[in-house]
């Protein structure tokens, strides 16, 4: 039996799916460490630096600790909903990685409606938050769930609208086409013609990933953990993993759509099938900016958050859509 059989359909998918799952879980673990180190250096202190050389084995220690912790659940919690919620939060964050192109030809599922797939699956994340808060049957969780629902559902609108410019420019909903259309150097990347959309998608992505300044559902200062206050042990670890995975996912999509995916900034630096290195570097940069913002800014209050989403981001998106359409009509040679 030659190894070619592994390239056939069921095996190829299963192996790549396993690889993606492995990647996502490790990404979540590594990001916990990165978050702690980045936050530490911003706060003028060292982060964890005892476990392993320079603290690099800290995620392993954390995961080991969480495996051995008891999963406590409130006595009158709705157990099915309570336990399914972390799964409902993790699966969307893991599933969308299947459509992201890492390198030329390296995409697990080359859907021609990949963008719609991304939008549809990310919406399920909001459902997970509501399940977690409602299933815990406690006042703080309920407040966190309501806030989470309001925030995530309303910020999906600017998230989606900001993608439409790219869809118009590319003429296709497939992420592979989007990346291929940005070939030739960083001046072809979509963040230049679509700069307002780039910013809007970034902000809406922060809101979808529930990061500061949009972390009110989890508002640590008032409702101490919000929708995830009743979780502990592995269930909590899964929620945290899904948060970091979704942060990584939003960064990856951001890079794919606006920053050229695996395209090198200058053609001379093209690495062929090792272009996933470029993809990784750009995604890491965006993740770093997410963390930088988290440890610098305070958080917005609920009504201010909603005002900003509906009254600022959505009009900006709509206006820029018209500008893009106009530019495509008037300058057909460029676009």
């Amino acid at each position, binding site marked *: 039996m030659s190894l070619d059989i592994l390239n056939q359909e069921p095996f190829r998918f299963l192996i790549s799916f396993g690889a993606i799952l492995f990647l996502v879980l490790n990404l979540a673990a590594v990001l916990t460490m990165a978050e702690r180190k980045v*936050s530490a250096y*911003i*706060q*003028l*202190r060292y982060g964890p630096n005892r476990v392993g050389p320079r603290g690099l084995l800290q995620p392993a220690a954390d995961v080991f600790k969480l495996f051995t912790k008891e999963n406590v659940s409130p006595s009158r919690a709705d157990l099915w909903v309570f336990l399914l919620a972390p799964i409902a939060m993790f699966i969307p964050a893991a599933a969308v990685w299947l459509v992201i192109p890492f390198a030329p030809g390296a995409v697990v599922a080359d859907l021609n409606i990949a963008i719609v797939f991304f939008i549809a699956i990310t919406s399920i994340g909001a459902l997970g938050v509501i399940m977690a808060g409602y299933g815990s*049957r*406690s*006042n*703080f969780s*309920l*407040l966190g769930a309501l806030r989470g629902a309001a925030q995530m559902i309303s910020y999906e609108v600017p998230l989606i609208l900001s993608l439409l410019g790219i869809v118009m420019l590319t003429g296709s909903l497939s992420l592979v086409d989007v990346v291929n259309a940005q070939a030739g150097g960083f001046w072809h990347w979509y963040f230049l013609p679509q700069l307002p959309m780039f910013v809007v998608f970034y902000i809406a992505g922060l809101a979808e990933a529930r990061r*500061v*300044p949009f*972390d*009110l559902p989890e*508002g*640590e*200062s*008032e*409702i*101490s953990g919000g929708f995830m206050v009743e979780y502990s042990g592995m269930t909590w670890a899964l929620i945290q993993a899904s948060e970091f995975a979704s942060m990584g996912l939003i960064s990856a999509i951001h890079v794919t759509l606006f920053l050229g995916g695996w395209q090198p900034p200058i053609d001379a630096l093209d690495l062929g099938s090792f272009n996933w290195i470029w993809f990784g570097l750009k995604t890491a940069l965006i993740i770093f900016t997410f963390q930088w913002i988290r*440890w*610098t*800014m*305070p*958080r*917005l*209050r*609920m*009504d*201010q958050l909603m005002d900003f989403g509906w009254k600022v981001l959505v009009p900006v998106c709509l206006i820029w859509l018209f500008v893009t359409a106009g530019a495509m009509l008037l300058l057909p040679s460029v676009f």
Partner: protein
Amino acid sequence: MLREERRAREQNRGGRASGRLAGPDVRDEFGLETLEMNMGPQHPAMHGLLRLILELDGETVVRCDPVMGYLHRSKEKISENRMYPSVVPITDRIDYMNNIAMEYGYCMAVEDLLDAEIPPRADAIRALLNELGRIMSHIPSIGFLLLELGAFTPILYAFRERERIQNMFEAITGARMMFHYIRIGGVKADLPEGMPEQMWEYIEGLEKRLKPDFMDLIEGNEIFIARTRGVGKMTQEKAIEMGLTGPPLRCTGVSYDVRRDYPYGWYKNLAFDVITDEAGDVEASYRVRIGEVQQSIRMIKQILENLPEGEVMADLGRRIRPSEGDGFGRAESARGEYVVHVVSDGSDTPYRVRYRTPCTVNMQLLKEIVPGHYLPDIMPIMGLIDPVSGSWDK
């Protein structure tokens, strides 16, 4: 009689127990229900052990009832059983962020009973440490305000300043936090050699650091302004009616400061401004606190330039046994007006010591001002009062 009434009232409230979601059997005549919820006493971000019984209508607070007493340590009762000098460590622990003012007030009250003359160097050192203690308390207050808004970094910058001041206090008094330094009749011991120069260096450094490390990063931040401007707005009448003192009162525009209006100790010789702000909201209280830090820096420089020589403890005899009467000591702590009323019956221990701590009174703000605000606004309003749980609970 009052106890029975209270119990009857609590039982009649029946099914509206806290924490239960509205079920079909609990229905209001309008069909709407407010959510009764507890914030605290265990909470990652309360300024201590405070239980707030909140009634929420969605995210709006309808009623806010602070329940205090979780850190009540019966300081007044203990003070009745200790001799006069031994009460000073008790006062240390009342407001643990600004201990030096607590000691100062008590010692002034006993010196009032004894009609004692304090040597000028002791007065100057007391004022110097009082102002350093004020800086030590205001900068972390600003850090806590921002921590509760969700910015996790300024608190660490603030505690870096506090650590530096605590190092100086450790060299002077021997302790980082519970100083037991201001004693009846003066201070415990003179400043160590080289301490005035070290303080001078630190103060100049702080003056340079205040703007880039704190003010520039905080004041222009859009989110900070959106969260604090207009939140907790009070009028001057309301503030005086509620009995507020200190930064919560001065942020509405009433210019009342014990150091200027009822001067004590070395403050009679110092020139400083009383910082007020007209707006009356949380942002105004932030500006008042930063302004007070700058004024404290100015006062410390004045004291260090003219530090008198001499002894640091008056000779009050071996035993402190004041004659019968009452003594009053009024000091400006970082949180407001702090008064100690000592009643003496001629024996070795006080007959009654009453600590009028500013936070107990300032907490009335929560009952009056919070209803009508959103739930996330409670935290900035606590940042306006800046209470410390030892101070409201004694």
